[in-house]
């Protein structure tokens, strides 16, 4: 059979999810994440109608128009709580958050902790480039100490946020790190994250070629290494150790994975059907009677 003219499954599904061609700078690390997301959705056989993506605000959030699925382009910092609301209302939908480092670790940092605690079954893909791109180059919460930027001309005084250690200690049940240039590896991480039942964070290192020349493709190529088969992601202590490898050597792969009931499984109201599918309660007279 001549298969030459048949579209590859990837091309087909890419078409289904395709929106406008990205407006990101040429060479932007976001392209790798974009492609990996689409490949992962293809592998997962997701359909754009039967899922929900919640986008944050920033260069990453601008993917809303390039990755076409049912989506909510939320407020800066608030993609995580919006996604939790979507999941509670319809827990049959896969819910994915696409946000940036400033979005998720700065403006919305509080929400991230509580999403991990609740083990809400959502997958949060964070574009970590250690800089604010859309606002033209200020430090992100993940910027290395001393990084100079428009908002920190003398170098940033704070030490960087440690996203992996942060969510690990707050109860996240799936934590991975990826590198946007290694798309095959990243695709597998996204697939595993979405398949995981529970709160999953995928922190993706993604070079900003315009505003952060220091943390370039070569910077990461020299430092990232894949966690091997000998690494046990179910071990909390070793995950905590890995989370401390921040600068010299940077691990990528699944850092932690454990099982815990997800938030919606603990709600008896959702045992028989999704919340959005439930018919209206008409027996309110019994509630009125309680006030006699």
């Amino acid at each position, binding site marked *: 059979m001549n298969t030459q003219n048949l579209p590859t499954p990837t091309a087909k599904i890419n078409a289904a999810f395709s929106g406008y061609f990205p407006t990101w700078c040429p060479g932007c690390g976001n392209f790798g994440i974009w492609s990996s997301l689409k490949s992962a959705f293809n592998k997962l056989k997701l359909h754009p109608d039967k899922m929900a993506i919640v986008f944050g605000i920033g260069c990453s959030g601008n993917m809303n128009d390039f990755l076409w699925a049912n989506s909510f382009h939320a407020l800066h910092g608030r993609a995580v709580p919006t996604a939790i609301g979507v999941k509670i209302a319809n827990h049959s939908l896969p819910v994915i958050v696409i946000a940036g480092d400033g979005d998720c670790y700065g403006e919305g940092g509080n*929400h991230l902790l509580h999403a991990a605690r609740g083990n809400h079954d959502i997958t949060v893909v964070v574009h970590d480039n250690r800089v604010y791109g859309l606002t033209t180059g200020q430090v992100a919460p993940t910027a290395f100490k001393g990084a100079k930027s428009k908002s920190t001309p003398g170098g940033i005084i704070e030490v960087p946020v440690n996203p992996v250690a942060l969510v690990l200690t707050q109860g996240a049940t799936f934590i991975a790190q990826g590198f946007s240039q290694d798309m095959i590896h990243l695709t597998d991480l996204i697939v595993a994250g979405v398949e995981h039942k529970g709160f999953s964070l995928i922190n993706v290192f993604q070079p900003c070629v315009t505003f952060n020349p220091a943390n370039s493709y070569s910077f990461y190529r020299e430092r990232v290494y894949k966690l091997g088969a000998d690494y046990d992601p179910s071990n909390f202590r070793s995950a905590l150790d890995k989370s401390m490898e921040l600068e010299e050597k940077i691990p990528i792969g699944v850092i932690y994975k454990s099982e815990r009931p997800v938030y919606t499984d603990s709600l008896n109201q959702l045992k028989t059907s999704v919340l959005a599918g439930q018919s209206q309660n008409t027996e309110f007279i019994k509630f009125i009677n309680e006030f006699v």
Partner: protein
Amino acid sequence: MIDFTVKIGGEAGFGIMTTGLFLGKIATRSGYHAFEYSEYPSLIRGGHNVIEVRISDALVHSQTSEVDVLLCLNKETFDLHAGEVREGGVIVFDNEKTDESLLKKPDRRISYVHIPFTRILRENQLATVMLNNIALGVLMQIIGADPDILNKLIAETFARKGEEVITKNQQAAALGLSEAKKDFPEGYKTKLVKINGVPEKVYLTGNEAFGLGAIMAGCRFYCAYPMTPTSALLHYLAAKAEKCGMVVKHAEDEIAVINMALGASWAGVRSMVGTSGGGFALMVEAVSLAGITETPIVIVMGQRPGPATGMPTWTEQGDLHFVIRSGHGEFPKIVLAPADSEEAVRLTVEAFNLADKYQTPVFVMGDKYMQEGHQSVDMEKISSLPSVINRGKLLSQEDLLKTGQYKRYLVTDDGISPRALPGMEGSLHQANSYEHNEEGHTSESASDRIQQVEKRNRKNDTYLAEDFRLPEVYGPKESPLTVISWGSMKGPILQALKETDGLFNYIHFSRLWPLDKAKLKAFLKGFRRFLLVENNSTAQLGQLLTMETAMEFPDTLLKYSGRPIYPEEVISKVREML
């Protein structure tokens, strides 16, 4: 006519609020109407708490400044409130704990009833939590209520705790009753004799009424962060959640609260949030998000005195402008302000229908005064309320497939676009916080912008054409003086109206925004002279009406002490003007 007030005071933590609630229920179960008002500081233990219950054989709309029976569980209650007791009234106090010679008794004929609360507790080895039962027993004797009603109420309340607990509580009440019989055998002149053949009553707070309205409206997601005076709405719905199939989420902060609710609403469930001024300040950015994404949401905004933390457990109507103007950018919103339990249930149900119809934020405003006080209402008035659920232009799966290429922000004549839900086949769309085109894609084109701004604004015109209502008028049609107010101040004003046999008439605003300027102006022109009554310092409704109609409202009765306006204050101001 029977109309009397019982006031109970003591240290916080003594169960004062429960005593008041039980007394109110005893009254309503005896066929009377009741109205409850409480004052307490923002503390858990200690501090001075008072609760008063006004009981009448006619509908009662507010508290009054004169007390018939004052029950003092500490000396402070006597010191602070003895002066409020009317001629011929009763004061109950613990004569063994308080030296009677040190009490500053009012120069009026008052019956003093001596109840050794502390000794009763000690001699019967009762815990301090039993104090409220003893107090209720005492009150049963003083107001001549049927102790069986109290005993039944105790049995219902402690049903889950078992027979022993029930008996213990009932015994404590019996001790109080017999002690009061000894010292005050004749009781108070007004007796709570059971009235038969009157409609059955329910007794509920504004918070409970909001919750009941939400249940009736098919609300499926309530999200909140505790904040007085709206915390009790969270407690009520959390307790009922499983029974009514609602998910109730106490989120990490008010920002998460409203964003979660918007996510849930977008995914198809009727969603509500509740808060007070400070918490609402955190929600404001997402109010604007609801505006541009056209996501329905009901927001219960319980006012208390600000700015900032202000006076957390007191009352004020200080956030009208804040709510009406909330959210950056221009988008339609609807603001309702129910006055009492019946209005609160009715307007909450309506709020959900309006939110779905207009796909925009709808506010239900309350305040500490109406949200925390219990109030009786004939049950039939609540149970007969229309609970029709109208989800507006929400598409069914079938309708959606018929539309072909679905456009979430389709430009329509009424400004409202058909709404599909994620998960439906053919529903592909995005709810976009950026300005967008009809498909929902981000757009900065001038024509898309103008189209979408005008589309959203047209929802306002549609509301004015289809859902705007002129304010209600109470009292005689023709009157030289017209009182204007809004929200919870309706109660004291109606009470004043009743007590003066219609000396004035009253225009009540329960739908505050948007307003139809032309209709409103023509309507107001039909009255002669106005007195604006508001529980704030800047006459916010007055300012709003001036802005909309260019009419001035120079005569005002404004109160901003953290206390509600009393009917007596309205009467005195009205008499002064006439």
